[in-house]
């Protein structure tokens, strides 16, 4: 299971290093989001494969349940992040200029 990580650990850079980055060196928000979505999709596929393997008797019950719960948790997180992004967008679009 993916453990909860420090953000600097995920990006492989310390906060100080991140501050000193310039231009294209910066890890764009878009890229981070894209990677996260890709990972969620990958975990989802793994869960599907786990069910197939379970049907063939290659995986035990706890393994397939774990894979499924992992996919579920990832999906819920993804949905909540999406909702937050949309809320933020709406708030900005309503802003008086």
């Amino acid at each position, binding site marked *: 299971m993916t453990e909860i990580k420090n953000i600097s650990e995920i990006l492989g850079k310390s906060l100080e290093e991140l501050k000193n980055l310039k231009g294209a060196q910066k890890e764009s928000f878009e890229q981070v989001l894209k990677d996260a979505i890709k990972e969620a999709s990958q975990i989802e596929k793994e*869960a*599907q494969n786990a*069910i*197939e393997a379970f*049907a*063939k*008797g290659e995986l035990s*019950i706890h393994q*397939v*349940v774990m894979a*499924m*719960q992992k*996919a*579920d948790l990832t*999906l*819920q997180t993804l*949905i*909540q992040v*999406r*909702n937050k992004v949309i809320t933020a967008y709406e708030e900005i679009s309503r802003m008086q200029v």
Partner: protein
Amino acid sequence: MDNSIKILEKIMDLCTYRQKILASNIANADTPGYKAKDINFKEELKKAVEDGTSSFEIIESPTTMPNRDGNTVNIEVEMTKVAETMLMYNTATQLLSTRIRMLKDAIKGGR
């Protein structure tokens, strides 16, 4: 629909079917000359998933010594099989409900 849903459905079909066979074995525990029946769970499941067949082959379950009246039902063995089948069925239902909830959440956007 989704492939994993299809597989889980087959697992549940097969569990229901096996449960029926096991119930009839237990019911016939005192019938002279009755041979205990079963299905080859793994083989049948593989066939069902790959070909989509819904008819299953019944085999005579391998047993230890038959009783004097030729009956081959062993209640303990049957009860173990019932427990096994129930566990499989419960797992499949749990996985299926998680899967469906995930799809519903994706549709509703978690609201």
